C-alpha cells in the first residue's frame, strides 16, 4: 500500500507540491509565533533567576540585631518572609589551603541563597561547629566529621583597617560543595562568628547582613514592606537621621529585580499577545490544511470511486487516504518547522527585544513541546478532514462515491424559486445553500482571515512609526545632580554654574530644571492617595520644547502644570512636610505615556512638572538647578571635567538611548512587517484554496452550464457573487469581533481606544477585491480546458 501511495504522490506532483508548500508556509508561521511566545516567558524566568535572588538585604547589623530580626521573622506567621539568610563575615584564610578561603557565619536559607550542597554531616547547630568546603577535604583526605580543625585567618578592623591574624579551632560537622561564591567558604553559625569578633576585640563588621526574598519567584510588595518595617523597627532608633541612614545606606533593594518584576506585566502581555496571534494563525493553519485536503479529495473523488469499483475495499481505501495525507502533512510540517526555526534564528531575537525594553537577554528557546504541538496540530486538522470523507465512504456504495457533493438536505420542493431578474445572483445564492456546512466552513475561514488582518492592520495603523521624540531631539547631554539628596549642601547647581556653562565655547543652548528647598515642597500627593509625586520646575524654554514634543500649547505667562502618572487625577495637593503649607493644583494636562516620551529626561513615572509662574504664585522657593540639558559639540569627557558647585554631578549622553530606541523602532517594524506578511500570506492561501475547491468540486457542473450557453464572464459573475456574499457575512462577523480584540489591545498599549477606520476600510476592500480576483483567475484558468473536458472532468 505504501508503494502505491508513494507513487501516487509522485505522479501528482503538482498537487502534492502545492499542498506541501501551503502546509510549510502556514506551519512555519505558526511554529515561529508559538516559539517566540514561549521563549518570552522562559527568557523572563531565566532572567529573573539569573541575577541575585534576593529582593533586598540590610547591611551593617550587629549580631544582636541579626538575632532579634531572626526571632521576629520566626514569629510573624503568614507575614514571615519565605527566605532569609543572616551572614557575618569573619575573615579570609590563606589561599593555598583550599579552593575556599572565606570564613562566614550563616543562619537561615543557605541552600537557597548560596546554592550549597551538603555532601556529608550536617550544618552547624552548636557553637564552634564548622562546615568545610569539599576542596579542603581533597587536599586533606584524612579529615572527617567530628575532627577538630584549627584555622588561621585574617580579620580586618573596620575602624582603622588594621588586619589581625587569628587562629581558632572548630569542630568539623559537615562537608559542603557547589558553593557559588568566588573564593568559596567555610562556615560556622552566627553566634560563633560574633564571638570571634568579640574575643578579638573587634567591632561588628559592616558586611554583616540579612538577605530577604519576600516570596519565592514573585514580588509581593506588601510582604516586602512588612519585612522592611520589621527590620527597621529593630534597627532604627527613631531619629530622622537614623531612619534616613537605614533607608538609604543600610537597606539595599535589588533594584534590577524590582524593575524586572515590574516588567513581568509587559512580558506576560506580550507573550499572551503573541500566543493569541499564534492561536489565530493555528486556527488558520488547521482550516488551511482542512481546505487543502478537501480540495485534493474533490480532485480525486472519481478515482476513489473507481478504486472501490475495481475491488479496493473500504479499509484499504481509508488506509490509502490516511497514508497519503500523513506523508504530505508530515513532509510539509517538518519542513515548515525547520523553516520556522531558521526564521526565528534570523529575526526572532530582534523581534523579542523590540517589543520589550529590558536588560533581559532574549533568546529563542528550542523546546520539544513546541515542535510536538505544531506537528500534532497539523496532523489533527488533516485527520479531521480525512475523517469526514472516510465516514462518507464507509456509508456509500462504490458507484455513488462520485456524487458526494450532490445536494440532498438543504434543497427541497419548498425551496423558493429565484427570479430571472438577477438570475446570476440567484444562482450564486442557491449554490451557497446547496451545502450549508461547506458554506459555513468557508465563512469561518474568511472570518478568521479577516479578523486576523483587521487586528494586525489596526495595531499597525495606530502604533505609528514616527520616531519617539525625546530630549535627544533638542539637546545632547544632561548634566544632573543627585536630586534625592537635596538636603545636603552644595547639591544644586547655581546661577554661576549656569553662566559658566552658557559661556563655554561650543555650547549652543542650555535648558534648566529646578528643584525645591529641603524636600518640603518636593512632595505632592494625589487626592486621597498616598502616592508621592516628585515636583519639578522647568524653565520656559524647556517648557517650549516639552510642549512641542507632546503636542500641547504652552503659555508661560500663566501658571501651568503637567502630571505624568499612570492615573489621571483632577487635583494634586502639594504640601510641605515640616509645615502646614499646602496648596492644590489642577494639572492642565496629564500623560500616562508621555513619561515614555520623556524618559531621557530621567523622570520617574510620577512627576508633576510646573512652570515658574505657578511656583511664584504659590511662594514656592527653589534652591537652584538640579539639571541642565545641553546642546553642544563638546564631548562627554569635556563636560564631565567641568567643575560645578554641586558635589554630586553626573553627565549622560542623551544619544545613547536614542540608538537603542532606533534599533527598537527597526525591531518594531520588522515584527509588524513579519506579522502583516504572515497574516496576508496565510489568509490569501486559505481564500485561494477555498475558491479552488469550489471550482474543482463543481467543474463538471460548470462545464454543463457552459454547454448550455453560460458565458465565461457570467460564470465569473456567479463565482464573484458567491464569494461576495460569503465575504460580506465574514465582514459582518469579523468587524465586531476584531473591534473587541482591538479595543483590548489598544487599552493595553495606550490606555485608550484607538481604532483606525481607514485600516478597517482598506483591509475589507483589499480582501474582498483579492477574493474576487482569485475567483476571476480560477475561472480564467478553466478556459484552457474545453467544455467537454470540464463536463467529463478530464
Amino acid at each position, binding site marked *: 500500500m505504501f508503494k502505491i501511495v508513494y507513487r501516487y504522490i509522485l505522479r501528482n506532483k503538482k498537487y502534492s507540491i502545492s499542498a506541501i508548500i501551503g502546509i510549510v508556509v502556514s506551519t512555519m508561521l505558526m511554529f515561529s509565533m508559538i516559539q517566540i511566545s514561549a521563549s518570552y516567558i522562559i527568557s523572563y524566568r531565566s532572567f529573573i533567576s539569573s541575577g541575585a535572588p534576593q529582593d533586598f538585604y540590610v547591611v551593617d547589623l550587629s549580631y544582636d540585631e541579626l538575632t532579634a530580626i531572626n526571632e521576629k521573622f520566626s514569629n510573624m506567621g503568614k507575614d514571615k518572609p519565605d527566605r532569609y539568610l543572616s551572614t557575618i563575615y569573619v575573615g579570609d584564610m590563606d589561599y593555598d589551603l583550599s579552593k575556599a578561603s572565606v570564613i562566614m557565619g550563616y543562619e537561615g536559607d543557605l541552600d537557597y541563597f548560596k546554592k550549597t550542597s551538603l555532601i556529608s554531616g550536617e550544618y552547624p547547630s552548636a557553637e564552634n561547629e564548622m562546615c568545610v568546603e569539599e576542596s579542603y577535604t581533597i587536599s586533606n583526605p584524612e579529615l572527617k566529621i567530628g575532627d577538630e580543625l584549627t584555622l588561621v585567618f585574617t580579620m580586618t578592623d573596620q575602624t582603622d583597617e588594621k588586619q589581625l591574624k587569628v587562629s581558632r579551632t572548630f569542630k568539623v560537622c559537615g562537608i559542603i560543595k557547589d558553593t557559588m561564591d568566588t573564593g568559596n567558604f567555610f562556615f560556622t553559625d552566627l553566634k560563633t562568628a560574633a564571638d570571634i569578633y568579640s574575643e578579638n576585640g573587634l567591632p561588628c563588621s559592616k558586611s554583616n547582613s540579612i538577605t530577604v526574598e519576600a516570596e519565592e519567584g514573585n514580588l509581593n510588595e506588601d510582604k516586602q514592606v512588612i519585612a522592611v518595617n520589621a527590620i527597621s523597627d529593630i534597627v532604627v532608633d527613631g531619629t530622622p537621621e537614623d531612619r534616613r541612614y537605614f533607608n538609604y545606606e543600610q537597606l539595599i533593594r535589588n533594584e534590577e529585580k524590582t524593575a524586572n518584576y515590574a516588567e513581568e506585566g509587559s512580558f506576560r502581555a506580550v507573550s499572551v499577545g503573541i500566543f493569541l496571534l499564534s492561536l489565530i494563525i493555528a486556527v488558520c493553519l488547521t482550516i488551511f490544511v482542512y481546505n487543502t485536503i478537501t480540495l485534493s479529495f474533490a480532485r480525486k473523488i472519481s478515482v476513489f470511486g473507481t478504486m472501490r469499483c475495481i475491488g479496493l475495499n473500504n479499509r484499504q481505501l481509508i488506509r490509502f487516504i490516511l497514508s497519503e495525507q500523513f506523508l504530505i502533512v508530515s513532509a510539509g510540517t517538518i519542513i515548515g518547522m525547520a523553516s520556522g526555526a531558521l526564521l526565528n534564528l534570523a529575526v526572532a531575537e530582534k523581534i523579542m527585544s523590540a517589543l520589550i525594553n529590558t536588560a533581559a537577554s532574549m533568546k529563542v528557546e528550542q523546546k520539544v513541546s513546541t515542535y510536538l504541538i505544531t506537528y500534532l496540530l497539523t496532523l489533527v486538522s488533516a485527520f479531521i478532514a480525512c475523517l469526514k470523507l472516510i465516514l462518507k465512504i464507509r456509508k456509500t456504495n462504490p458507484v455513488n462515491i462520485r456524487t458526494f457533493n450532490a445536494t440532498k438536505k438543504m434543497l427541497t420542493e419548498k425551496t423558493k424559486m429565484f427570479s430571472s431578474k438577477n438570475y446570476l445572483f440567484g444562482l450564486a445564492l442557491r449554490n451557497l445553500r446547496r451545502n450549508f456546512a461547506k458554506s459555513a466552513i468557508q465563512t469561518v475561514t474568511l472570518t478568521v482571515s479577516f479578523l486576523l488582518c483587521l487586528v494586525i492592520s489596526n495595531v499597525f495603523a495606530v502604533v505609528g512609526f514616527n520616531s519617539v521624540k525625546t530630549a535627544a531631539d533638542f539637546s545632547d547631554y544632561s548634566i544632573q545632580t543627585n536630586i534625592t539628596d537635596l538636603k545636603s549642601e552644595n547639591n544644586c547647581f547655581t546661577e554661576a554654574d549656569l553662566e559658566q556653562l552658557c559661556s563655554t565655547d561650543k555650547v549652543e543652548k542650555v535648558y534648566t530644571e529646578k528643584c525645591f528647598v529641603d524636600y518640603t515642597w518636593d512632595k505632592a500627593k494625589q487626592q486621597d492617595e498616598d502616592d508621592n509625586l516628585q515636583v519639578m520646575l522647568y524653565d520656559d524654554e524647556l517648557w517650549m520644547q516639552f510642549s512641542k514634543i507632546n503636542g500641547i500649547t504652552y503659555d508661560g505667562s500663566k501658571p501651568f502644570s503637567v502630571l505624568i502618572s499612570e492615573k489621571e487625577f483632577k487635583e494634586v495637593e502639594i504640601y510641605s512636610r515640616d509645615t502646614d503649607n499646602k496648596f492644590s493644583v489642577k494639572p492642565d494636562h496629564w500623560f500616562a505615556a508621555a513619561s515614555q516620551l520623556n524618559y531621557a529626561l530621567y523622570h520617574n513615572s510620577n512627576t508633576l512638572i510646573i512652570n515658574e509662574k505657578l511656583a511664584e504664585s504659590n511662594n514656592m522657593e527653589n534652591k537652584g538647578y538640579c539639571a541642565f540639558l545641553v546642546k553642544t559639540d563638546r564631548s562627554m569627557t569635556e563636560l564631565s571635567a567641568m567643575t560645578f558647585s554641586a558635589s554630586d554631578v553626573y553627565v549622560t549622553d542623551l544619544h545613547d538611548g536614542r540608538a537603542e530606541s532606533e534599533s527598537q523602532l527597526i525591531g518594531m517594524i520588522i515584527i509588524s512587517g513579519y506579522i502583516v506578511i504572515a497574516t496576508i500570506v496565510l489568509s490569501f492561501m486559505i481564500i485561494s484554496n477555498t475558491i479552488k475547491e469550489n471550482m474543482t468540486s463543481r467543474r463538471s457542473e460548470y462545464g454543463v452550464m457552459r454547454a*448550455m*450557453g453560460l458565458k465565461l464572464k457570467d460564470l465569473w459573475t456567479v463565482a464573484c457573487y458567491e464569494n461576495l456574499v460569503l465575504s460580506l457575512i465574514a465582514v459582518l462577523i469579523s468587524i465586531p469581533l476584531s473591534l473587541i480584540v482591538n479595543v483590548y489591545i489598544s487599552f493595553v498599549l495606550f490606555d485608550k481606544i484607538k481604532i483606525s477606520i481607514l485600516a478597517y476600510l482598506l483591509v475589507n476592500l483589499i480582501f474582498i477585491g483579492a477574493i474576487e480576483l482569485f475567483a476571476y483567475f480560477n475561472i480564467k484558468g478553466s478556459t484552457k480546458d474545453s467544455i467537454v473536458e470540464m463536463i467529463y472532468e478530464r
Partner: protein
Amino acid sequence: MIMGIISLKNVNKYYKTGDNSFHALKDINLEIEEGEFVVILGKSGSGKSTLLNVIGGLDGYDSGDVIMEGFNYQNADDTLMSDLRCRKIGFVFQAYNLIPVLNVYENITFPVNIGGGNVDKKYIANVIKELGLEGKEKSFPNQLSGGQQQRVAIARALANKPKIVLADEPTGNLDTAISSDVIELLTHGVKEYGHTLVMITHDPDIAQFADRIVTIEDGKIV
C-alpha cells in the same frame, strides 16, 4: 449545393497527450439540413462523440471549418459561441448532467435565463406536458428517476427553441422500456417544433427512425 443548417468542411481534430498525438477526426465533410434527423453510428472510439462535440462547439478542432447558418466557428470568441449554444443548440447528454442545485423547472429554463431572454411560459408548460413532467416542476434532480432526469434534459434542450438538438447517446443510461419512450419523446418533440436532431447511438433500432445515418469509423465518415 444548398447550405445546410450546419456544415463541416475538411475538419480535422487531434488529441495530444504528452508526446502522443491521436488523429480523432480526419477530413470530415458533413452537411446537415434543417429539420433533418441524423443518426451518427460507429464503434466505440470511432470519433462519434468528438464529432458531436465539435458540431456543438463544446470542443475545438485543429483545421477546417464548421459553419452554422453562415456563422463560422473559427471567427467566434467565447461570448459568441456561448450565445450560439444558448440560442441555437440544445444538448442532451448521456449522463443527463442536470444542475443539481436547480429544480426541474429551473433546469429547463436555464438556457433561456442565462441568455437573457424571456421565458415563454406557455411553451415551456407544453414541453413539460409533452414530456410527462407535470407535477415535477419543483423537484430536484436527486428526487427523480433516470428516465425522468433524461426527460428534463430533453426539455432543457428544447427550452430555447434551438435550431439543432444534439443528443449524445441519450438512452445510454436507461433501460429498454424507458429508452424507447425517451426516443419517441425526443423525436416527437423535435418534429413538433421543427428542430434538427443529430443523435449518437449504438442502437440500430433507434437508427432506423433517422432520416439519415452517418457512419463514422476511425475518425472518418464512411
